[in-house]
């Protein structure tokens, strides 16, 4: 098993937390994993990206050219990274903030998920990263939503533990929107 993914969006959307959660879940599943973030220039409104590689073999490069999946949480990420994924790859777009009409690729699987709107409906726009991971779990088949939700405790700081059930709901909402279990 080998799977790699870019998660990209605005700083403040929880891009790095989403990547860390995915990495933690992959580790708890017994896989090898690397998580590489953009760093140093993170700020709200700037661009944040991370790369997660999961494998049951030893992982070589944490740097990836052409990930199997791109999760584009905003318009600039869609424009910039839709070309990265190879033919047959997966593009998951936050259709609340990125325009699906700007998808140029015909040779990849594209799914629009209104992540921000679904998150707002759940009560907090900041849950959009969890909705994204739910959709990713459902569509990539690389890891299950339960495995992702199971890792929440390890990455969410103690003072925010009470928010774990809400985050779980957001993950399940992503699963549901992307086609259900």
């Amino acid at each position, binding site marked *: 098993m080998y799977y790699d993914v870019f998660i990209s969006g605005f700083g403040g959307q929880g891009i790095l937390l989403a990547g860390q959660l995915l990495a933690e879940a992959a*580790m708890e599943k017994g896989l090898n994993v690397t998580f590489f*973030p953009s760093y140093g220039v993170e700020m709200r409104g700037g661009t944040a990206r991370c790369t997660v590689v999961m494998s049951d073999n030893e*992982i*070589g490069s*944490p740097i990836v050219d052409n990930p199997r999946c791109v999760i584009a949480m905003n318009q600039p990420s869609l424009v910039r990274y839709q070309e990265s994924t190879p033919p047959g790859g997966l593009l998951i777009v936050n259709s609340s903030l990125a325009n699906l009409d700007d998808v140029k690729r015909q040779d990849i699987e594209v799914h629009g998920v209104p992540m921000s709107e679904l998150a707002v409906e759940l009560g907090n726009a900041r849950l959009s990263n969890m909705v994204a991971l739910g959709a990713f779990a459902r569509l990539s088949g690389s890891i299950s939503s339960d495995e992702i939700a199971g890792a929440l405790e390890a990455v969410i700081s103690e003072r925010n533990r009470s928010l774990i059930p809400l985050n779980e709901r957001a993950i399940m909402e992503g699963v549901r929107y992307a086609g259900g279990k």
Partner: protein
Amino acid sequence: MTEQKRILVKGNEAVGMGAIRAGCLYYFGYPITPQNEIPEFMSRELPRHDGEFVQAESELASINMVLGASAVGVRSMTSSSSPGISLMQEGLSYLAGQELPAVVINVVRCGPGLGGIATSQGDYFQAVKGGGHGDYRVITLAPASVQEMYDHTILAFDLADRYRNPTMVLADAVLGQMQEPIFEHGDVPPEPRKHWTLTGAANRPARHLKSLYLKEGELEAHNRMLQEKYREIQKHEVRFEEYDVDDAQLVVAAFGTSARIARTAVSRAREKGLKVGLFRPVTVFPFPGMRLCSLSERVKKFLVVEMNTGQMVEDVRLNVKGDTEVEFYGRPGGAIPTPVEVLTQIERHY
């Protein structure tokens, strides 16, 4: 061994964890990206272990505080990134001259000058050839994973004490910032007894730690002794790793993050039926030149991959047999070579 739990940590945190495990009690440093998680970690953890964290006024101060701590025999360290490490070169020379152990972590970023905060391997020459003045060497470890960031930090304390020599962990921004699962495994070797520390001369003859030798013949003897020590290090401490070199027609040589990128490229080349291997120096001083020399009796072509414009490649050329072809591929500071790029180079030179 009891089954241990893997934990997901950032490379910089793994350095801090390794240092605490090795019994480091004093950290001196000045902030710089991309290694700030090291001082952050040490400022939080050292007080819990009866140690001290000091944010110095500069890197020059940091390295000299390490020198002072070392002189009284306690384990101490500093960490920085390239521009800060340049400022420490004078101190490293004095540490080497006085034969004082010290652990220095360099999470390399791109230069020259302030350069940028992205990753690079542009400090190879500075690290392995002795970046300060005088004829000295720094033991230099080149981790390629978060696990090795942890392991090499522990090893650096051990080697520094055993050889009474400054020891550097030559990492880079990718290794500092990436997260991977690690085991906090391994026994830490006992700290050697230090018969040379300056702890007060009551009831014993005075000791001296100095690097100034003015008497006729004294300095040459001191330098010869240092060189003898470096030869011992070369004899006993060379470490390297190899993948798929046994039947290889082309061997890629790379250290640190470049080796990780090359590893993926080598696997893809193998999938295409190309007989390609990977040679990774784990210590870059001492450099595994003897092993490269013996490999070159069979392998006629090497491709060196670095995140610089060609530094370790000089050590590879120096060590392989005369008729061996040594090709180079690198990206200078500001860019990272990708697995696809390296694979293209493998196919080109195969």
